[in-house]
Each structure stands twice: as structure tokens, then as C-alpha cells.
């Protein structure tokens, strides 16, 4: 039994390290197309993990992902050529984080669905104002972004994903992880037990925004051109949310798998039939919410339990010749 537990603890990290080693070596032998596909997948994995970092921990559904991702894209356009890429990423990460601090400070006292629709509206507000500003004040729409080769972008995204995973892991293990589960399960009690819930939530929101903003800037280098409408697209808020819900949030694998499946589906379908993608997307969302309370992870756990329940008594019966079959719990 003890051995079994140890194995379980090791197996997750081992799988992650193997996947990571594989991913690092991939550009050496993979085709260009694969790298481009993986770039999209990594981008969604980064967004989804960042979303889970805040919303999964606190239980507040944020639809502000597009604000921070858009900020990343847009900053890359505005500051194109001014700063080298690493500094640019840092810069847009920080701008996104500051935006998150502002949005978080004024809204995190709102109840769940109000927080969700507030963040949703903030995407649209920024989009409309920027769009108006571009047309009426600047007189030009959009900005150009210098291209960076796919391989580099791929490695940067991979690094961001690893960074988010490590951050999540460290927070989960720390005392703040405990405080966050307290906030999620009963915020009022947490607050009366000495947890500064507001500060914690706002900081986590900013941290998550930081990663999202950086991801946006990296991705901008592959788009060549950004304007307000392209950058602040609500889908960037919806997609990570669904990917996380679909994958399940009780394990870090959930969001990764959810994002991978849908990013792949999107790459495959978006050129062929974008409405089919949206349709599947919506349908899966409905089905997941109705029938898969903890997404794919929950499904996996349930299936495993079912198998164990069936398998263990059978094995015991074999061992003990059926005598103690009814003692299996």
C-alpha cells in the first residue's frame, strides 16, 4: 500500500519530465507544420493553465483572459521595434498585471456571476474604446509586428508553460494554497480565520494576467498585424474557460489535456469549417456542464473507481477462493 502511494506520487512528475524532454527535442526532427500546430496548442495550454491558476484556485469565473491576452498582443504592436522581445514580454506581462490589479481591486468583492459579466464587459469596453481611438484620433488602424521564427516562439511558449506549472505547483504546496482552498470552499469563514482574501485574490489575478500578457506578446510575433478588434476577441476569454472545464481542474493534467484537444480541433477545423468548430465547442460545453462535473479528470477518476470496485472483489475472490468476497468494501 505504501509503495503504491509512493509510486503514485512519483508517476505524475515523471510523466511531465518525459513529455518535457520530448517537447524540447521535437524541433530537431519534427516538420514545420507540427511545430506550428504545437505553437497553437502551447498557447492555449498557457492560457488555460493561467486561467486555472486564478479561477480554479478561487472559484471566481474570470472572463478577462481576452483583456490580458489582448493587452499582450496590442503591446507587441505598439512597442514593435522599440524593445527586444524578452523585455517586450516582460513589459506587456507587467501592463497586464497592473490592469488585473485595477480590475481585481474594484470587482473582486462582487458575487460570482457579476464578476464574470463584469470581466466580460471589460473586454468589450476596451475593444470599443481602442477601436474608436484608432479610427478617430490616430487615424490609422492597427500595428505591424516583426516576425520571429516559429522555433523560437515554440521554445518561449514552452518555457512559459513550464513556468506556470512550477508556479502553480509551488502555490499549491505553500500555505497560500491552503488559504485559497479555504477561500474557494467558504470565503466568509476564511476571512474570519485571518486570511486576507481580497489581497490574495487580487495578487493571484495579477499573476495569472502576467502570464497571459506574456503569452499574447509572443503570439503577436506570428500574426504580423494586430488591431483592437483582432486583439480583444472575446473568444480568448471563452476558449480557456471551456478548455479548463472540459479537462477538469482537480489535476494539472486536466487543463493541459482539455486545451490540447480543443486547440488541435480548432487548428483542424478553423480553416475548413469555423462554424462547425463553434458548434462542437458549444455542444461540448453543455454536455460537460451537464454530465461531467469535473471534466475528463473526473471521468477518469470515476471510471477507475468503477473498474477497481469490480476488479478488486474479483481478485480477492480468486485469492481467497470466494470465502471473504463480501468483506471487500
Amino acid at each position: 500500500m505504501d509503495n503504491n502511494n509512493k509510486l503514485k506520487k512519483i508517476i505524475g512528475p515523471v510523466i511531465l519530465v518525459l513529455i518535457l524532454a520530448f517537447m524540447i527535442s521535437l524541433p530537431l526532427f519534427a516538420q514545420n507544420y507540427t511545430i506550428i500546430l504545437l505553437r497553437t496548442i502551447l498557447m492555449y495550454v498557457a492560457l488555460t493553465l493561467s486561467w486555472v491558476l486564478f479561477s480554479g484556485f478561487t472559484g471566481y469565473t474570470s472572463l478577462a483572459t481576452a483583456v490580458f491576452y489582448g493587452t499582450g498582443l496590442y503591446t507587441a504592436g505598439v512597442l514593435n521595434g522599440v524593445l527586444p522581445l524578452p523585455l517586450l514580454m516582460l513589459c506587456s506581462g507587467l501592463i497586464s498585471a497592473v490592469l488585473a490589479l485595477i480590475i481585481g481591486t474594484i470587482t473582486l468583492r462582487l458575487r460570482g456571476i457579476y464578476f464574470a459579466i463584469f470581466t466580460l464587459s471589460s473586454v468589450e469596453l476596451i475593444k470599443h474604446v481602442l477601436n474608436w481611438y484608432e479610427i478617430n484620433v490616430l487615424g490609422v488602424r492597427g500595428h505591424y509586428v516583426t516576425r520571429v521564427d516559429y522555433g523560437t516562439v515554440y521554445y518561449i511558449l514552452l518555457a512559459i508553460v513550464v513556468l506556470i506549472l512550477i508556479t502553480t505547483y509551488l502555490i499549491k504546496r505553500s500555505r497560500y494554497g491552503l488559504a485559497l482552498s479555504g477561500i474557494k470552499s467558504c470565503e466568509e469563514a476564511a476571512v474570519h480565520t485571518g486570511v486576507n482574501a481580497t489581497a490574495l485574490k487580487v495578487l493571484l489575478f495579477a499573476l495569472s494576467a502576467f502570464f497571459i500578457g506574456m503569452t499574447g506578446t509572443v503570439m503577436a510575433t506570428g500574426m504580423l498585424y494586430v488591431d483592437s478588434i483582432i486583439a480583444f476577441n472575446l473568444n480568448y476569454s471563452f476558449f480557456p474557460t471551456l478548455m479548463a472545464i472540459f479537462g477538469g481542474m482537480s489535476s494539472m493534467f486536466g487543463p493541459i489535456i482539455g486545451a490540447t484537444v480543443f486547440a488541435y480541433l480548432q487548428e483542424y477545423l478553423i480553416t475548413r469549417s469555423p462554424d462547425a468548430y463553434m458548434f462542437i465547442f458549444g455542444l461540448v460545453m453543455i454536455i460537460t456542464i451537464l454530465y461531467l462535473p469535473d471534466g475528463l479528470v473526473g471521468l477518469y477518476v470515476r471510471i477507475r473507481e468503477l473498474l477497481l470496485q469490480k476488479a478488486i472483489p474479483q481478485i480477492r475472490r480468486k485469492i481467497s477462493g470466494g470465502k471473504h468476497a463480501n468483506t471487500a468494501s
Partner: protein
Amino acid sequence: MVLLINIILNGLLLGGIYAVTAVGLSLQYGVARILNIAHGEYIMVGAFLTWLVHTKFGVNPLLCLAVAGPAMFILGYLVQTFLFRKLKEKTPTPAEFEGSSMLMAFGILFVIQSIAIFLWGTNIEGYSYLAYSIYLGDIRLSVNRLVILIAALAICLLFYLLLTRTRTGKAIRAASQDPDAAALMGININRMLALCFALGAMMAGFAGMLISLVYQLQTNMGMQYTIIAIIVVVLGGLGSIPGSLIGGFLLGILGAIVNSIEPGLHMAAYYLLFMILLLVKPSGIFGR
């Protein structure tokens, strides 16, 4: 002076549409506690159905009510019965239901919108109906907007009578005020919820018809009307039809003012107003 009168008139004309847009959402949230983010999609479908029937068969768009309304009624009924009701049975607490039903509404939004794109594409569509103006002195009135205002008022009045004067309406209101007591009195709550959701969707269909009379249509236009509907409900109070009318007119006048100053910013102004409203009433924007 003329400018002011024009603004107010335009605001009132716009407000009529906004009121009809909001009434359905108000009913759905008031009774079923579902923040139906997909509300605008029903409006969009209502608008496209009107456009379709009008341009294909030459039917007077106002009469397309008879198509858009019932179609949305059925859709709403099915959605409540097969999706939200199931979800409610599985969700332990009302607060959780509020959250997950909103997410599910997002899913429904995507499904409806993708089917609409499949059927009607992503181009801007539209037709013109009574597109001319009459003048009262210096004041310009566009005829189709006037028609819309009258139609909107009539729709709201009929809906009001339906809810206050008929037995079904009274049952719905009883169910919304005290579900347990209503159930004890022999009211079938599930049927009432489905009915009220369906009626809300039907009102969205009507709103779509009205919108198609003056505005261009696009399959992605739903979200903006959802937001407008939510703002109007916040302004006018939840579950009150006269309140929706007042809220609609207030927002319409605000829209007309912004439009006269800086046309490109009127949606931004709506969003800003919405966010401010959320912040000043954090205890719950839908407080009764």
C-alpha cells in the same frame, strides 16, 4: 432646442426596442434565476427569421411576429426542459446553479450562433421598410421607428396583461415569488419555469423582429443586445414590465445623447454604464 427634442425623440424610439429586448430576460432571471447570456442569440434568430420570411415570401415584416415569436417560444421551452431543468436537478445549491447555468448559457450561445452562421453566413444583411421620414416643423421623425415604438408599446402592454390578468400569468408570478408555496397550491413548477423561459424567448423573438425593421443584421450581433437587456433590467428593476419600459427609455435617451456627440462610442458608453452599475450595487444588481 430642436436638437434636444430630436435627441429625446430618438431616445424614446430606441427605448421601445430596448424595453422589449429586456422584458424577456427580466422574466427569465426573475423566475428561473438563470442569467441567460444567450438571450441576444434568440433576438438574432428572431431578426433573421423575420428578414428571411419578409425577403423570400414578401410577407409584411410586422406580421412575421407570427413566425419569430412562436419559433423562439418553442426553442425556449425545449432549452429549459432539456437543459436547464436537468442542470438544476444536478446542482446542489442555488448559488452554484446561478454560476453553472450561466456557463451553460454560453454553450447554448455558441451552438445557436454557429447554426446561424451555417445557415446565414457572416455577412451583413437587411432590408428597408417604411424608410422615410415625416417632419413636424423642424423635427424629423422616421416612420419605421415610430412604427416600432408603437409596436413595442403594444407588445409590452399585451405581455403585461398576459402576466397580470390570465391564470397562467398569475401562476407564473406566484411561482416566482414563492416556489414552495406555489408548489403546495398545486402549481407545476417545472411547467411554469419552462413556460416562463419560453415566454422570455418569445419576447426575444419579437425584439428581433423590431430590430430587423431598422438595423442591419449580422449573426454575431447577439451579445450586444444581451448586454443592453441586462443594463435595462438593472435600470428598471427585475421582473417589472413597466420598469423595463422606463429602463429602456432611460438607456435609449442615453444612447441618443452619446450618439449625437460621438457616434462611435455609444456601445462603449453602454458597457461603461453597465460596469458602473455593477459596482455601485455590488450586493446584487438584480435586487428587487
